[in-house]
């Protein structure tokens, strides 16, 4: 590799999940408020409960590889979050885990592929298209930005993660004017415009945590 970075290992994965759990707790009220506007006021509560369960599982049985950490996360989210977010994030983490296999660490290409696999999992389950005002609107720009950063080829996983996080954040902001066509916000029709999608925001928070864990 042309650049002096290490790949991302299981310690990074654990730090990532820990920072994600922290972010969900810190942004719990904000995510509830966003969901209150166009949903049912539970997204922050759901994600906070889910990542607390992830932390419990991590403590119970420390994983050996990044892939194992993500699989454990998928299982915890699937069984503790419920709602739409539970299966969607569960599938995202499961597909990312599968994409990583049991490699001990992750290079930029593997990282970008894992993010893409996560997004594809969300789409496979939720059938949302970009522009439907869902978490897909954060995942999809992240996938593209990560792929571009990985393709740049300087081997810096941090750059890939930062690109993904920034793109996800921009994607979340860009959901503001959209009219929801999937998920609970779709019931509001045009009244859903003018609000940010809570799932897109939680996706951005998770990807930002991934970058934070790599610093």
């Amino acid at each position, binding site marked *: 590799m042309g650049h002096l970075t290490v790949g991302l290992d299981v310690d990074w994965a654990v730090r990532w999940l820990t920072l994600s759990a922290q972010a969900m707790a810190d942004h719990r009220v904000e995510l509830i408020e966003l969901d209150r506007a166009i949903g049912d006021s*539970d997204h922050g509560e759901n994600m906070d409960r889910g990542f607390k369960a992830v932390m419990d599982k991590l403590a119970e049985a420390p994983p050996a590889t990044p892939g194992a950490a993500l699989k454990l996360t998928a299982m915890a989210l699937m069984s503790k979050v419920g709602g739409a977010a*539970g299966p969607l994030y569960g599938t995202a983490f499961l597909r990312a885990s599968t994409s990583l296999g049991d490699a001990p660490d992750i290079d930029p290409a593997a990282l970008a592929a894992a993010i893409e696999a996560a997004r594809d999992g969300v789409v496979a*389950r939720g059938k949302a298209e970009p522009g439907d005002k869902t978490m897909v609107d954060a995942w999809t720009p992240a996938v593209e930005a990560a792929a571009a950063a990985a393709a740049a080829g300087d081997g810096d996983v941090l750059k890939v993660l930062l690109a993904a996080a920034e793109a996800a954040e921009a994607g979340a902001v860009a959901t503001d004017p959209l009219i929801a*066509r999937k998920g609970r916000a*779709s019931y509001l029709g045009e009244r859903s415009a003018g609000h940010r999608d809570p799932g897109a925001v939680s996706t951005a928070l998770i990807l930002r945590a991934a970058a934070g864990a790599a610093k």
Partner: protein
Amino acid sequence: MKKLINDPRAVVDESVEGFGLAHADLVTVSSEPKFITRKDAPVAGKVGLVSGGGSGHEPLHGGFVGVGMLDAAVPGAVFTSPTPDQIIPATLAVNSGAGVVHIVKNYTGDVLNFETAAEMAEAEGVQVRTVLVNDDVAVEDSLYTAGRRGVGGTVLVEKIAGAAAERGDDLDAVAAIGDRVNQNVRSMGVALSACTVPHAGVPSFDLEENEIEIGIGIHGEPGRHRIPMENADAITDRLLEPILADLGIASGDKVLLFVNGMGGTPQSELYIVYRRAAQVLAEKGVAVERSLVGNYITSLEMQGCSVTVLRLDDELTSLWDAPVHTPALRWGI
């Protein structure tokens, strides 16, 4: 927020525990993972019926577990669909070998979690059929959206499919009856006030003193549009018209009329709404053959109601009339 609770995060646990204590003659409560089964489940030879969804809609679904209705109910967190690790064991627990029908309200969360659970239960050798309930005419029905929500019609699907299972229909037949009810039932709701989700601590939407929300769901989500307060007859007309139009109800049809309270509205007001709906139907030459008035599918302490109309045929009527013995609905036993 003032509520008769101890801890916002323990609401479902403690409430289901109390429910289990109060109805120990009818149901068994599993607390970890959380689900409620009919005392005598699995019933030999009978198709099992499982429903579930977020909590906060009581008596739905736990209140409908018992003879002639559900075999199991799976309560999620408040307004949050349950997870597969609850739905799967509930499904296994009520499978007598005749298979299990999942009755699922059409919300992304419910659909996804039940879908996963069905897949995994099938992997364990249980035949599963899913009846999707999507009766809410407030929401546009389209392939490109999440589609219509399941609301009041759910209660009728559970009762009638439950009766079909109880009389011995096989798996496909029970699912078919459930689908038939769904195809013939439509609902629409109104909120006069929002509800407060315990963990959120603030009302789920803000409504002025003279405003109401038309086309609300059962999760405290805002409705389709907001209008100035009107009298009960005018509101009833607003709810009933799209239902009748969508169902194509015509003179000579026989229907079941269901006026449902959202949790915080006095029964006396529900009967005022029922009165108007019955008058309108009578004027149109529609025969109201059965009725149900009360809090059956609620949204915590929300004030408001929904109106549901089911087109009846002789079979649906006789299944509706069949004995049922659950905490919240009981007759003939």
